[in-house]
């Protein structure tokens, strides 16, 4: 319990510090001006979401291999948290796009693959509500989770493989990409803060899933007596 409170407090303090750094520490970008400050929030949320899906993918793989319910809990916790982060990305992106591009949305490779990723994990969560039997639910959703993860490298690669509306990557984007030192430090700090927040939410969601399993055991015990 104390660990969870500490992690929660660390997450809140870090994201506040990251927001402060985004507005008051990072230098202003020349072409977009103050609007570019959405970048620190939008991209760090996207990275944290993709990390959550990646951890969930390993949870799904391990469930298929070892059939331990803890891996199923990890898979669903990461999927739900990943969906929350991706929802933020899909909302903050168009809000940034409207003044920058003149349009809220376009069906370019990065935007479309991100939207499909969101739909895939929403389907994963819906699938879980349709199957009553716990082992069958865990196995089928783990298999579906492995399939859904195929879109994660596509989202990552979309702005590297195809040149469309979304800007080219500034991190890991090749020799002509990069950020000014002040921007880079703020960006990586924001990414770190969002990952701590993501881990806090995953751990909270994992505890919920563990409790659900306890309730199921108690119910079976109550039925047997």
């Amino acid at each position, binding site marked *: 319990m104390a660990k969870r409170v500490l992690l929660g407090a660390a997450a809140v303090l870090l994201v506040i510090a990251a927001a402060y750094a985004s507005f008051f520490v990072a230098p202003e970008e020349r072409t977009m001006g*103050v609007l570019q400050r959405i970048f620190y*929030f939008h991209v760090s949320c996207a990275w944290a979401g993709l990390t959550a899906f990646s951890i969930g993918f390993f949870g799904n793989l391990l469930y298929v291999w070892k059939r331990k319910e803890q891996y199923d809990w990890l898979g669903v916790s990461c999927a739900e948290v990943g969906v929350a982060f991706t929802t*933020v990305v899909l*909302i*903050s992106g168009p*809000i940034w796009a409207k003044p920058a591009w003149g349009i809220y949305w376009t069906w370019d490779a990065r935007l479309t693959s991100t939207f499909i990723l969101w739909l895939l994990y929403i389907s994963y969560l819906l699938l879980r509500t349709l199957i009553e039997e716990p082992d069958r639910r865990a196995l089928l959703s783990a298999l579906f989770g492995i399939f859904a993860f195929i879109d994660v490298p596509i989202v990552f690669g979309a702005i590297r493989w195809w040149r469309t509306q979304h800007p080219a990557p500034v991190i890991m984007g090749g020799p002509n990409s990069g950020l000014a030192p002040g921007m880079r430090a703020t960006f990586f700090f924001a990414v770190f803060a969002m990952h701590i927040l993501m881990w806090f939410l995953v751990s909270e969601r994992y505890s919920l899933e563990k409790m659900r399993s*306890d*309730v199921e055991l*108690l119910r079976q015990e109550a039925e047997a007596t």
Partner: protein
Amino acid sequence: MKNLDSIFWAYTLGWAIFFGFYLSVAKRSSDLRAEVERLKKSLSANSREK
């Protein structure tokens, strides 16, 4: 300052989603905790009857 409203809405809606998600997890956890307590009480009542 130009485009400040866009930044305001991006951050506000983003944090509202995280806060809403956390509240939904907290609500589900509290419901399950109550259910655990109820089941434990009913189990101990059953064992006392026996």
